[in-house]
């Protein structure tokens, strides 16, 4: 082929040799911005699904709260009711549920991101626009790696804020000292911990997972999910049978479960004191940088596949 890498071609000069009457300058940042916007137009589930889940959490909470109020009215001890209610658990569970759901959204988004437009042939339209494959792939990678963690954070914060108001309202009606709730309950601390967790784990640590899914998405014509599962499963099985070892499954487990706060139980994730965090250790860990290097390899592969495999439907 005439060029070894499609990625290098985007670095050619901005000035067209055939300047027409009104060639507005369009920067790569602008192309990237519109490519991102395009993703949100197409994949409304990116914000609708976590929004619906947040709604369900609030509805469930309201139901529980009205039961609680009945219990209080029925003469139950207020402290016992509070015990039962365990505000912190409710708040943590809401955050965990939202994170779990948005991880699944990110997972399936990545699997379809570079495949769906090849299936409906709309790639022929997108490729007719002056947006390079590098920008296309980067904008699609930014969704699970950058924007879904941010969306998760914003929706969680809003949900927890509403939860706090609802809790106050319910407990105020039951005679509980609401002020102590607001004083003792460090929502700000929880949000900082949540943001840290989302940025370190969901964005940086999981980046190679999404990079891999995008690569599969660029490669497979259909059944991306199965294709994504086959290679890791095959390696685990072959390794087990041939060598009776489990390095690869350990590697996968390390990627999915470890990370900066690998040892922490999930319900403690947001409650632990800030001093438990070790951001410098995380930044120096080889696991982080290996993962990011792997992400770069996967995304380069996705760009090349997008370019070479291109629009051919055969």
């Amino acid at each position, binding site marked *: 082929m005439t*060029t070894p890498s499609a990625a290098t*071609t985007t670095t*050619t000069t901005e000035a067209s040799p055939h300047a027409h009457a009104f060639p507005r300058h369009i920067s790569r940042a602008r192309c990237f911005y519109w490519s991102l916007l395009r993703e949100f137009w197409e994949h409304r589930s990116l914000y609708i699904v976590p929004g619906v889940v947040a709604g369900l959490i609030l509805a469930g909470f309201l139901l529980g709260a009205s039961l609680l109020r009945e219990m209080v009215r029925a003469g139950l001890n207020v402290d016992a009711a509070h015990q039962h209610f365990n505000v912190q658990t409710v708040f943590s569970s809401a955050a965990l549920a939202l994170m779990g759901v948005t991880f699944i959204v990110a997972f399936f988004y990545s699997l379809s991101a570079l495949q769906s*437009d090849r299936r409906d042939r*709309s790639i*022929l339209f997108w490729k*007719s626009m002056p947006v390079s494959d590098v920008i296309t792939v980067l904008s699609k990678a930014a969704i699970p790696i950058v924007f879904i963690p941010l969306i998760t954070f914003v929706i969680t914060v809003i949900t927890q804020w509403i939860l706090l108001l609802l809790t106050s309202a319910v407990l105020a009606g039951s005679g509980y000292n609401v002020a102590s709730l607001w004083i003792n309950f460090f929502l700000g601390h929880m949000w900082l911990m949540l943001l840290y967790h989302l940025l370190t784990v969901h964005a940086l640590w999981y980046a190679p997972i999404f990079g891999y899914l995008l690569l599969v998405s660029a490669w497979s014509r259909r059944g991306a999910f199965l294709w994504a599962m086959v290679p890791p499963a095959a390696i685990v099985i072959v390794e087990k049978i041939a060598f009776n070892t489990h390095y690869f499954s350990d590697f996968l487990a390390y990627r999915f479960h470890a990370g900066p706060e690998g040892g922490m139980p999930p319900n403690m994730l947001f409650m632990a004191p800030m001093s438990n965090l070790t951001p410098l250790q995380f930044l120096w860990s080889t696991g982080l940088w290996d993962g990011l290097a792997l992400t770069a390899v996967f995304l380069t592969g996705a760009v090349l596949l997008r370019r070479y495999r*291109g629009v*051919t439907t055969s």
Partner: protein
Amino acid sequence: MNCIEARGLRKSYGATVALDGVDLSIPEGRIVGLIGLNGAGKTTALDAILGLTPYQGGLRVLGLDPWTQRDLLTRDVCFIADVAVLPRWLRVSQAVDYVAGVHPRFDRGKAERFLARTVIKPHSRVGELSKGMVAQLHLALVMAIDARLLVLDEPTLGLDILYRKQFYESLLTDYFDATRTILVTTHQVEEIQNILTDVMFIHRGRIVFNRAMDDLESSCFEVEVAPQHLAAARALHPIHEREILGRRIFLFDRADRRALAALGDVHTPSLADLFVATIGNQAYAAPSQPHAQPSSAPNPDQGVAQ
């Protein structure tokens, strides 16, 4: 400078040869029809020109290498590569916003004026539009881009006749001028016959016929030969002979019009008949050895197609 210049353009998918040494030069300001059967290499040729697929051989589009310089080329080249490739979820207003956002040569006002002439509502999703309306939308977007080469691959397939007529009329009246070049492939040869300036037939990955329409009128003739002149007509090496309702119709390429006039009524053949004659000969003559074909005019000695 030629808009498109190809020398020995080749492309194969595994053992299948899609382009088998295509040579062509398309100057600026032409409307070129590329006509061929399914699988003749039309789409592969367009993909190569649009930088969508790597290839062997020499190819320059607007002076650029379409594969290695694709990111530059996409600013000056537009294409409608099929009807209905706009994604179903896209809203009309979003399509306009997006193209305005990424395309340096897009004139938003122009696109909106084109759309105002249609019944398409800005808030509709592509999935809610009829096929004809999707084609109108796509054309409105493309015509608002000040591109130098427009490539159309079956842009009206499956549309009804009103939309098809309107499609090409808009192109001619609102878009085409001497600085632009249009390359179009279609099965509906008759409909574009009158708008083309040049025509090319592609068969088995090679250009087998390539003529300006003006030359075509002065070099290709269809003659309804009177029965007593049949032998004389055959001696003049017709490229095709057929019988319709008892009348014998002969097609001649590069023959002397005065000599033909003695045989019967002389007309300019339709592109469709010319295509059938040319490709019919090719298909009939040498299916097992496609390399033996001359790349220009078909050999008149190859006899009569079925």
